[in-house]
């Protein structure tokens, strides 16, 4: 198959269209503007609808409406905009509606800057909005993976009836690299019998997140928790490099993993027993796999483009079985492989 050469943001938009996305709403914010721009040009020709919303809040609620009608729907933004979307994301989770939400992260807090950052990890994997809920969070690290995981995101959203977040950053969104645009193969998924599409020949459907009856909401929450447990049992994804004999294992995701694999390769050439572990799903987090490696005696260092967020999940997974270190830079500071090499060389 011929390779394609596209920007991460544009590959994401095209993958979404191939995966049957029929509704997109968004609001301009750097560094993800190529997604709404691409969608506005291309989605209508594929029979979908594009709306430039008046706000991030409106965009996520448009997605809420489109998803309730049974359409595959997506919105995208970057950090400050994702904060605004949290209301709608919580409602999607509560109403058990599928949706794909893209966060091409930028530096924060506040307006921050437009540099690459991973400072929205907590917000993405711990819920983000109000209430006890989780998103399935996918963290691509190449344009190829942006293509593949975007398609997967739509399938998983439908399978679990839950919002799925694609957590990228400004480098991944902006960089251009070749990838193989593998065709989308839709898996068998349950029919959306709950969708609002007119009650002809059936009882009316209601889509809501309000459960005020005695014990009703608690019961609903157990249904949601059960869903998150199924994700943990079935959908943990990760990739490893040189971990078999590693005494030190670097844990990093997304663009930080691109930097880490380079540093790990450099260290391997000098004979250091260092490996790399890359979570692809940030929720569900590969806690069992990391725990097993810790029991074997490996030491960990989480490398992130933030002040230390995923490292907390690594510590929970390790659960005191070995040492967990951290190296990162907040505020849009990007680590270089050489810098990381220097930091790691004396730890192993």
């Amino acid at each position, binding site marked *: 198959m011929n390779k394609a050469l596209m920007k991460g943001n544009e590959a994401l938009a095209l993958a979404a269209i191939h995966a049957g996305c*029929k*509704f997109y*709403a968004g609001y301009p914010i750097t560094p993800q503007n190529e997604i709404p721009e691409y969608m506005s040009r291309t989605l209508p020709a594929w029979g979908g*609808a594009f*709306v430039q*919303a*008046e*706000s991030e*809040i*409106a*965009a996520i*609620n*448009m*997605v*809420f*409406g*489109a*998803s*309730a*009608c*049974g*359409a595959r*729907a997506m919105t995208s933004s970057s950090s400050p905009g994702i904060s605004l979307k949290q*209301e*709608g994301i919580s*409602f999607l989770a509560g*109403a058990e509606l599928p949706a794909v939400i893209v966060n091409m992260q930028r530096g924060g807090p506040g307006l921050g800057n437009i540099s690459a950052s991973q400072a929205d990890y907590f917000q993405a994997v711990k819920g983000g909005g109000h209430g006890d809920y989780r998103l399935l969070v996918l963290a691509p690290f190449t344009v190829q993976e942006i293509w593949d995981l975007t398609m997967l995101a739509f399938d998983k959203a439908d399978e679990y009836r839950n919002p799925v977040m694609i957590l990228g950053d400004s480098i991944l969104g902006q960089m251009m690299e070749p990838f193989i645009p593998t065709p989308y193969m839709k898996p068998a998924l349950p029919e959306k019998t709950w969708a*609002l*599409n*007119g*009650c*002809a*020949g059936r009882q*009316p*459907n*209601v*889509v*809501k*997140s*309000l459960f005020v009856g005695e014990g009703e909401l608690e019961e609903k929450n157990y249904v949601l928790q059960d869903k998150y447990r199924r994700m943990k049992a079935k959908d943990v994804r990760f990739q490893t490099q040189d971990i078999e004999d590693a005494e030190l294992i670097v844990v990093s995701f997304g663009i930080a993993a691109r930097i880490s694999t380079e540093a790990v390769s450099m260290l391997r050439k000098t004979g250091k027993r260092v490996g790399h572990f890359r979570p692809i799903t940030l929720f569900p987090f590969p806690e069992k796999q990391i725990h097993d490696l810790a029991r074997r005696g490996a030491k960990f260092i989480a490398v992130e483009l933030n002040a230390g967020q995923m490292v907390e999940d690594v510590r929970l997974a390790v659960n005191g079985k070995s040492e967990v270190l951290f190296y990162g830079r907040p505020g849009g500071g990007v680590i270089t492989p050489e810098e990381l090499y220097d930091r790691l060389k004396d730890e192993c």
Partner: protein
Amino acid sequence: MNAKDVKVEKTVEKARSLKNVPFRYCPGCGHTIIHRLIAEVIDELNIRERTIGIAPVGCAVFAYDYFNFDMLEAAHGRPPAAATGMKRTLPDKIVFSYQGDGDLAAIGTGEIIHAANRGENITVFFVNNATYGMTGGQMAPTTLPGQVTTTTHVGREINTTGYPLRMSEMLATIEGAALIARTAVDSPENIRNAKKLIEKAFKYQIEDKGFSMIEILSPCPTNWGMTPARAAIWLREEMMHYYKLGVFKDNPTDSQNQTKSSGVSAVMRSL
């Protein structure tokens, strides 16, 4: 005439678009009447099986318990955005939102203005009762000057809280809006008028004429601290004085054929 020759005909039937459950709204509340009017019109237009309604946050949040067709419950103020997503996804369905004054005129001002401005082919029912009913009677954006609420103990003071918003007059200035009108449910005459406007708004959507909003002044005896009879009088004497009934915009042009292009876009097209 023999008694057995008398044919008893049902003159009033419950609308098919209402579920067979009693309303739980307060005595004298306008929501009950407005729900019924909407349901009757949907029956009469024979669109129940292709209608999707959106419940607001507020007293009418439970609208999905009463309407007998597909219903969505959306976040506070966001029904026009959710309706946009729905109508763009399923253009052949009839999509309406049902919103109160807090929902539409405070937290959801952005959503209503831009849905109207895009000329979304949806119908909005805006129930204005000058208070936040569900939360216990706080000041609404439509609370009248001097009106006592639980957050305006000495009456609404305009120097610190501003003037009540006239949403219909404001939205009527928007090019994309097809039908903007205000009516009330205080009297049989106005109830009949409200039903006519509800029907017209749905017909506009069926005929793809674009955005319509019917504002309905509605009594809230509980939070106004009045009997239902007194509340109807207050609505007539106080609310209608500030919020004039009428049709503020009526543009029956098919939204597909509207000439919205300005001179600038005409120039850009020729380049």
